[in-house]
């Protein structure tokens, strides 16, 4: 689809800029929790891993290159103000921004057809980018590039209503089964309630919340996860995870959906306001 509307051109540009920002620079709250963990870590081996991670973060910024070679798949959140109509062209504009970012940043082309495994080479495809729309005051685009190593370790469970006290166990089990594979220290998004699909969406959105503000409930799960001792990169240590963020929604009295979305230390996301 040709982008003709100036608002849509501005959205394509904002998507490109948010993508570039996201893969090169971490948000301040994410950087803070990594720095805090690095300072508090007691294992000498894990301290070395944190030193490499911090050096890598500053190197990516200095060189203007992606911090990880897995530049992810495009997960996009749009906030649409009342005067911007939600049209197909808005979706096309986001895809255009993704294609430009793939060429110019550059990004690794990761998006393939799920069955034929044919790579489109531009990080778009049927239903990709994954675009989520919310009403709001400002017109913004958030790009959340999701790498496969951590995403593949995510799980969803339809627990019984009587298993509310088993939620922590389900999260800890997810991290235990993942081991070193999601590149710990990880960030854990948990969606509790809603429906099967809604819980998964909440788990992902939870990862976008400020990581340096946790409730007692979230801190309790984090402490339980960190008792596993998997540590940075599976080499052992105090920080298997940096933060746990929970989102909840009302659910059926006979249901308890729990989704756990795993994210590596590079919890990359950036939000750009669309200039009109």
């Amino acid at each position, binding site marked *: 689809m040709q982008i003709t509307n100036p608002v849509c051109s501005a959205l394509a540009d904002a998507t490109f800029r948010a993508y570039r920002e996201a893969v090169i620079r971490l948000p301040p709250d994410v950087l803070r929790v990594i720095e805090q963990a690095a300072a508090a870590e007691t294992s000498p081996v894990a301290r070395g891993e944190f030193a490499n991670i911090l050096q890598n973060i500053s190197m990516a910024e200095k060189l203007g290159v992606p911090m990880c*070679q897995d530049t992810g798949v495009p997960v996009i959140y749009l906030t649409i103000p009342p005067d911007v109509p939600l049209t197909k062209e808005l979706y096309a504009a986001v895809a255009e921004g993704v294609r430009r970012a793939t060429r110019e940043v550059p990004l690794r082309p990761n998006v393939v057809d799920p069955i034929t495994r044919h790579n489109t080479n531009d990080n778009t495809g049927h239903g990709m980018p994954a675009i989520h729309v919310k009403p709001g005051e400002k017109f913004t685009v958030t790009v959340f590039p999701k790498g496969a190593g951590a995403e593949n370790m995510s799980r969803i469970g339809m627990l019984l209503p009587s298993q509310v006290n088993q939620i922590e166990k389900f999260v800890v089990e997810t991290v235990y089964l993942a081991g070193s594979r999601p590149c710990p220290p990880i960030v854990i998004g948990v969606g509790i309630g809603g429906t099967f699909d809604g819980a998964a969406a909440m788990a992902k959105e939870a990862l976008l919340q400020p990581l340096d503000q946790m409730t007692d409930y979230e801190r309790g799960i984090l402490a339980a996860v960190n008792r596993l001792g998997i540590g940075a990169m599976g080499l052992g240590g105090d920080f298997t995870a940096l933060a746990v963020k929970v989102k909840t929604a009302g659910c059926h009295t006979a249901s308890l959906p729990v989704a756990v979305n795993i994210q590596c230390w590079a919890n990359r996301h950036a939000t750009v306001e669309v200039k009109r």
Partner: protein
Amino acid sequence: MTAKPVQLRTPLGEEVLALHAGDHVELSGLVYTARDEAHLRMQKEGIPFDPKGAVIYHCGPVIQDKRVVAAGPTTSARMNELSGFLFDKGVRALIGKGGMGTRVLGQLKDKGVYLAFTGGCAALAADRMTLKGVFFEDLGMAEAVWVFELDRLPLVVGIDSHGSDIFGDVSKHAEAEFGRYKKS
């Protein structure tokens, strides 16, 4: 505090036998990338470089205009069943992430080490690497054997030549810790 890293330069010799799991090292000199496809090809057609004292890096890099753009480590466990012939030919070290199985632990005994590099650290890796050549380029960018010259790449000994394996120990601890939920 972390002790000063041990400086190593390829080709490696018996100095790797003095390393212990948990030691930090900085590696300089030539390394060869290899993933699943390259291992299979080398088993069939032979190793295209001098394997004596060589180091294999589990990595599928992004190369652009003959430059290393991003070159973080890939998951080593995929090569668990593919690596034995390398040590028989004289390879002294593997670099990757996530550790390897008990089979490799046995194969490294009195021969070599597994060095862990931090996952996701593609920018740091690229900054410490210069592209020197390539073999098996027909396998594609990710699977080809690239020759990189390293300049003090910061690594940690994950598995040593004396039978110590940090990843194995950590897994056992995590298993015991999670086991407490099963009892409750």
